């Protein structure tokens, strides 16, 4: 058995992760012995419209963070365009709290390749690129090996599996930039430039890589496609809740006894994930807060966590399901320090293109640093909230919002955590 990073849980529903832990799970032989490429052959007999319809029926939503319905996104690519169409896989996994795409590429690269191939049939693309963050060098190498194996056995390249379909697939290395996980910044990056977000519209579906129609999805999104085509969109949809189809890899970290990546159906109760799947909080301490889907999501207080984890319920709770990075914080956590650490991250990662984000994150970091260093002023808490709110919706991409939203939620829900840092007679230093 290939060593796993954490023990699986019996409470999981293992669809995308079904091969994790199998002997040589990354090899093409293992893949072929476990239903591999059946879905591609089935999709080859379907029309593009039928493939897209099946994905729509599955209620699969983008696993990178935004949760946009995948079938709808695929339908936006103009198949009849005379330009070449491209597929780009976002494997820039950088959202703090998120570590799942790593596993899908390491343990089951051919599932990803098959998902990409099915997407290529749906949008009439003949070339694709997997944009992998530079830190994941070992995955670039292992993905290249899997791609090489697929080429040598006729599952990539010309006349794939004898069906007459042609498709070329390559990896592309990033070099350290959170911003490049944003789809339009990723496109600039793959064109050899600084990763700066683009104005939308035009959306990447119409003018993406090299100004050609481009389908861009997360690793986990593509990895779900073979199951959807093989077993039917309804089978996937039925695993989750209405409009929230299937399972997803939930990355649980922070103050839990058994942190790990677990595949759970959409709509899984959040408290059950914390207390049963992840083994509860060490020392029997009380839950204080949860980041439900990566550090960009507004933080939930313990009493807000008795909810099912699906996109719509999280939205109703004022947060997001995001990228599946769930960070659990116990009663000992100092939320002022959490706010500072999150803001240090966004200030570091802001690409600097939009002033509200570049200046906003920098000033929020400066104010939070000054407070935590013992020079907080009474009016600082209100200032943090006001500054953050002024960033919302005023930038090209979502990074400005991603920095502002958790800050607003912390200031509003945990104002008491800032009290100890406020010195009434503090002077500006």
């Amino acid at each position: 058995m290939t060593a796993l990073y954490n023990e699986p849980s019996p409470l999981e529903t293992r669809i995308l992760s079904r091969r994790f832990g199998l002997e040589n799970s990354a090899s093409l032989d293992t893949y072929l012995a476990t239903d591999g490429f059946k879905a591609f052959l089935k999709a080859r007999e379907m029309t593009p419209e039928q493939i897209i319809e099946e994905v729509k029926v599955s209620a699969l939503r983008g696993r990178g963070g935004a949760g946009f319905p995948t079938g709808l996104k695929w339908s936006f690519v103009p198949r009849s365009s005379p330009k070449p169409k491209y597929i780009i896989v976002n494997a820039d996994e950088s959202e703090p709290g998120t570590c799942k795409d790593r596993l899908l590429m390491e343990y089951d690269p051919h599932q990803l390749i098959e998902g990409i191939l099915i997407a290529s049939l749906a949008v009439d693309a003949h070339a694709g690129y997997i944009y992998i963050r530079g830190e994941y060098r070992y995955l670039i190498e292992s993905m290249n090996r899997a791609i090489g194996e697929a080429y040598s056995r006729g599952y990539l390249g010309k006349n794939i599996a004898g069906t007459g379909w042609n498709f070329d697939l390559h990896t592309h290395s990033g070099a350290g930039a959170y911003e490049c996980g944003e789809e339009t910044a990723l496109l600039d990056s793959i064109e050899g430039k600084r990763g700066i977000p683009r104005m939308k519209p035009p959306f990447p579906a119409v003018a993406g890589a090299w100004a050609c129609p481009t389908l861009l999805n997360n690793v986990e999104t593509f990895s779900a496609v073979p199951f959807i085509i093989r077993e039917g969109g309804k089978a996937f949809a039925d695993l989750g809740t209405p409009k929230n189809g299937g399972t997803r890899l939930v990355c649980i970290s922070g103050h839990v006894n058994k942190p790990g990546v677990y595949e759970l159906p959409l709509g899984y109760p959040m408290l059950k994930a914390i207390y049963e799947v992840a083994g509860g909080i060490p020392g029997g301490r009380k839950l204080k807060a949860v980041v439900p889907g990566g550090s960009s999501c507004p933080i939930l207080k313990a009493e807000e966590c008795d909810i099912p984890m699906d996109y719509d319920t999280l939205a109703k709770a004022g947060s997001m399901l995001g990228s599946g990075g769930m960070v659990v914080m116990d009663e000992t956590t100092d939320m002022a320090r959490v706010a500072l650490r999150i803001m240090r991250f966004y200030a570091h990662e802001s690409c600097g293109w939009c002033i509200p984000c570049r200046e906003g994150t920098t000033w929020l970091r400066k104010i939070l640093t000054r407070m935590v260093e013992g020079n907080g002023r009474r009016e600082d808490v209100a200032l943090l909230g006001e500054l953050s709110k002024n960033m919302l919706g005023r930038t090209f991409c979502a990074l400005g919002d991603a920095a502002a939203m958790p800050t607003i939620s912390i200031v509003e829900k945990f104002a008491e955590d800032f009290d100890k840092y406020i010195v009434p007679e503090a002077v500006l230093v």
Partner: protein
Amino acid sequence: MTFSPALEERFAQMLRAYPEGRQRSAVVPMLIYAQDEVGSITPELIEEVARRCGVDPLQVDEVVGYYSMLHRRPMGKYHVQVCTNISCMLVGGEQLYEHARKTLGIGHKEVTPDGRFSLEEVECMGACSWAPAVQINYDFHHFVTPEKLDQLIDSLRKAQ
């Protein structure tokens, strides 16, 4: 400039991977792989990558400052990267980084006088569920304690 045969082969593949006339796309991957061999992003390397990708050296130079893994000065032979982002912070990442500073006697992006080690406090590296995490060059280390970090550094000190 010439590179090792393996890297030359990789560069040839990279240039073939992108559509005709779009070889600028190879700039970032070429820089990061070349840096591993050359040691840092030197002015000569920038000229070379620009020539191979058919762009102006300035177009290469301007991306170097953007990507956090590209360095204009050489880092140590072993580049120790400690994550202190939220998931790591909650389980001791900041203490681990402080410990690394003391053990190595250097700070953020500094290099030991013998050039063997460098240290960097890094942002999320995608190992949140196995935190705290450290990356030494490209190797991940999970559930790292100060003692485990000392052992890792010791074994690298002894290695040639």
